[in-house]
C-alpha cells in the first residue's frame, strides 16, 4: 500500500511535457571513430549518447557538416543511420575516498567485481592546472625506497620525474617499489596507478602484489588495457590525474603514475589519423606536445593558501633501443622536472635498478632531500662519475697509483651498494645508514659479493642494538653522535664478515 502511495505521489509530482533533444545520425563508423551528421550545437569534448545501444562517445572533431566522435566502448551493434543525441555534459570521472583500493576504467566504472562505487562527487577529466601563484616550490621529499634514486636523483612531492627506458628493464618494478614504500611514510600520499595500454596479465600481477603487501588500501588503479579502444588509452591518464587532483585540492598528498605515456601518444595518433587531422613528425598530430604538457602541468605543490596539497607525477616513457632523442621522449623530458634513465646494457650486466646516473637528473635535487640524506649523499654523484671515468681508463693500463686504485675500489663498492632487489624498498633511515657506510669508506675491505649481506646485517644490528638511530634519522637528523653509532655498528658487521671469510 505504501509503495502504491509512493508511486502515486511520484506520478503526481512528475511534470510531463514534450522533451526536445538535439540529435544527429551516424554516417560512418570506422576504427572506433563515428562520423555523425546533425548535432548542430554540440560542443568540443561533450559526451554524446547512442541511444540504441546505451553507449557513449566523446566529441573530438567539429566540422562544417559532420562531427567526429570517439567511441567510449567497442561500439558493437551500432550501425549507419542510428541516432546520436547530445547530453550537454563534458566527460567527468568519479572521485573520492571510496575509490581507494579499487580498480576502475577511465570512466570510473569498477572492474574488480567488488560492487558499485558510489562517490557522489565528480570532476571533469579536462581541467586547468594551478596557476603560477597558486603553487609553491617543491621541498618535501617523496621517498621511493630505492637507494639510487633517493640519494642521487631525489624526488619531491609535487615534482614530475620521468622514468625512461626500453621494454623489460624494470620501469614498472621501480614504480611498484615506490608505491610499496609509501606504506610507512609520513603524510602518506594516495597512489594512483594508471595502466595505459598494458597487458591484462601484467596488471593482474601488479594488483596481486599490491594487495599482498598491503599497498592496495591506499592505491587506486585506473585500467585501460591493450585491448581497450584507443579512446580509453587516451583518456586513462587524464582520469588518473583528475582522481589525484581531488586529494591534492583537499590539502593531501597524491602520487600519480602513468604507465606508460608512449601508449597514450600512440592512441592519440591513431585517433587523430582516423579523424584525418594533418599528421606531423612520425605521423603524430601537431598537438602531441600539448597532450602531455596539459596532463603533466596539473601536477605540482600548492601554496598554503590553496591547502598545501601536492600531486606528484611519475610518467613512464618506453624508448626504442635506448634512444632518448626520439620525438616523444624529448617532448616529455622538456616538460618534466627531471628524468631517471634506465639503461639496457647496465641491466644485462646485473646492475639493477639499471639507473644511468650520468643521464639521470632531478631538477629539484637536494631541496627535496632530508638534511641527513643530503649530508651523506652530497658528493656521491661526483664520486661515482669520477669512478666511471677511472674505470674506463683502467681498462687501458694496469699501472695505477694507489689513490686511483682506492677510488676505483670505493666506486665498485658504491655501485654494489646501489644494487637493490625487486619489491625491497628501503625506508629512508635505512638508506641513509647504508649510504653513510659506503661514502665513509667503512666497507673498503669487504668482498664485493658480501656487500648485500653487509647491508642486511647492518640494518639488523642497528635495529637490535641502537634503534634510536633510525628514529633520529627518520626526522632527518644526522649529528656526530649518530654518526659514531653507525660507524661502530658498521665496523662490527664488517669485522664479522671479514672473519667469516677467513
Amino acid at each position, binding site marked *: 500500500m505504501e509503495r502504491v502511495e509512493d508511486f502515486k505521489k511520484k506520478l503526481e509530482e512528475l511534470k*510531463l511535457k*514534450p*522533451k*526536445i533533444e538535439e*540529435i544527429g*545520425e551516424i554516417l560512418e563508423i570506422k576504427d572506433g571513430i563515428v562520423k555523425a551528421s546533425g548535432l548542430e550545437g554540440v560542443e568540443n569534448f561533450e559526451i554524446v549518447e547512442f541511444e540504441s545501444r546505451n553507449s557513449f562517445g566523446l566529441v573530438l572533431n567539429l566540422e562544417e557538416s559532420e562531427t567526429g566522435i570517439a567511441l567510449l566502448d567497442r561500439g558493437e551493434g551500432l550501425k549507419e543511420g542510428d541516432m546520436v543525441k547530445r547530453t550537454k555534459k563534458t566527460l567527468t570521472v568519479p572521485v573520492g575516498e571510496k575509490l581507494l583500493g579499487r580498480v576502475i576504467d577511465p570512466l570510473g566504472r569498477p572492474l574488480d567485481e567488488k560492487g558499485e562505487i558510489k562517490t557522489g562527487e565528480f570532476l571533469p577529466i579536462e581541467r586547468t592546472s594551478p596557476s603560477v601563484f597558486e603553487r609553491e616550490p617543491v621541498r618535501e621529499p617523496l621517498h621511493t625506497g630505492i637507494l639510487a634514486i633517493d640519494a642521487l636523483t631525489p624526488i619531491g612531492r609535487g615534482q614530475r620525474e620521468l622514468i625512461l627506458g626500453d621494454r623489460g628493464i624494470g620501469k614498472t618494478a621501480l614504480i611498484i617499489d615506490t608505491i610499496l614504500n609509501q606504506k610507512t611514510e609520513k603524510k602518506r600520499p594516495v597512489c594512483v596507478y594508471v595502466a595505459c595500454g598494458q597487458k591484462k596479465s601484467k596488471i593482474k600481477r601488479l594488483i596481486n602484489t599490491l594487495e599482498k603487501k598491503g599497498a592496495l588500501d591506499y592505491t587506486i588503479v585506473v585500467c585501460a588495457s591493450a585491448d581497450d579502444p584507443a579512446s580509453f588509452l587516451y583518456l586513462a591518464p587524464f582520469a588518473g590525474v583528475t582522481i589525484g587532483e581531488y586529494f591534492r585540492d583537499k590539502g593531501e598528498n597524491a602520487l600519480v603514475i602513468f604507465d606508460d605515456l608512449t601508449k597514450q601518444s600512440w592512441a592519440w595518433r591513431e585517433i587523430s589519423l582516423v579523424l584525418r587531422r594533418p599528421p606531423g613528425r612520425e605521423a603524430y598530430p601537431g598537438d602531441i606536445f600539448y597532450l602531455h604538457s596539459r596532463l603533466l602541468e596539473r601536477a605540482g605543490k600548492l601554496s598554503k593558501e590553496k591547502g598545501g596539497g601536492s600531486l606528484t607525477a611519475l610518467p613512464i616513457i618506453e624508448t626504442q633501443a635506448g634512444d632518448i632523442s626520439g620525438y616523444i621522449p624529448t617532448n616529455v623530458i622538456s616538460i618534466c622536472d627531471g628524468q631517471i634513465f634506465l639503461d639496457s646494457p647496465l641491466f644485462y650486466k646485473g646492475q639493477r635498478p639499471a639507473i644511468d646516473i650520468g643521464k639521470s637528473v632531478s631538477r629539484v635535487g637536494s631541496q627535496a632531500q632530508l638534511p641527513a640524506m643530503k649530508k651523506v649523499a652530497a658528493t656521491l654523484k661526483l664520486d661515482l662519475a669520477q669512478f666511471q671515468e677511472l674505470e674506463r681508463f683502467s681498462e687501458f693500463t694496469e699501472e695505477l697509483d694507489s689513490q686511483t686504485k682506492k677510488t676505483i675500489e670505493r666506486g665498485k663498492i658504491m655501485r654494489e651498494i646501489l644494487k637493490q632487489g625487486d619489491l625491497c624498498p628501503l625506508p629512508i633511515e635505512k638508506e641513509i645508514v647504508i649510504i653513510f657506510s659506503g661514502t665513509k669508506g667503512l666497507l673498503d675491505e669487504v668482498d664485493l659479493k658480501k656487500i648485500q649481506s653487509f647491508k642486511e646485517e647492518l640494518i639488523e644490528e642497528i635495529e637490535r642494538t641502537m634503534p634510536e638511530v633510525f628514529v633520529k634519522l627518520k626526522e632527518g637528523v644526522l649529528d656526530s653522535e649518530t654518526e659514531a653509532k653507525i660507524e661502530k655498528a658498521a665496523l662490527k658487521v664488517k669485522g664479522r664478515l671479514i672473519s667469516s671469510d677467513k
Partner: protein
Amino acid sequence: MNTKKYISNLAEALFLAQEGKKEEEKNKLAENLRRILKERKKEYLLPKVIEKFEEMISRRQRIKLFLAKDQKSDLIKKIKSFLSEKFKGKEVDIIIDQNLIGGFRVKTENVLIKASVKDFLNEFKTCL
C-alpha cells in the same frame, strides 16, 4: 580518395550548390555534374551520387512526424503547415508507428521532439 568518399563529396557539393536555387538552376547543376563525370570517365557513378544526394535531402530538408495512429486529414494538414512554418519551409513526412501508443514525435536533422505516451512512460520509469 576511396570511391565512397568521392561519391559522398560530390553529393555534398551538389547539395550545397543547389540550396536556395530555382528549379531551372538546379537542373543546370545536375547537367553540369553529369558532364564533369563524363569528362573524368566516371559517368557510372552518377546514379550513386544522385542516391546519396536524395538521402541528404531526406535527412536535411525533410521533417519526419511519427504518429501512433492515422489522424483526420484536416488535423494532419494543420500539423504539417505548423511544422513547415516552424522549421523554415521544410516538407513533412508522416510515419505511423504504433509503438508510440499515443502522442507524437518530430524528427529533423538536428532535433527530436518527444511527446509520445511511450516517451512519457519511459520518463516515469526513469523517475522511479
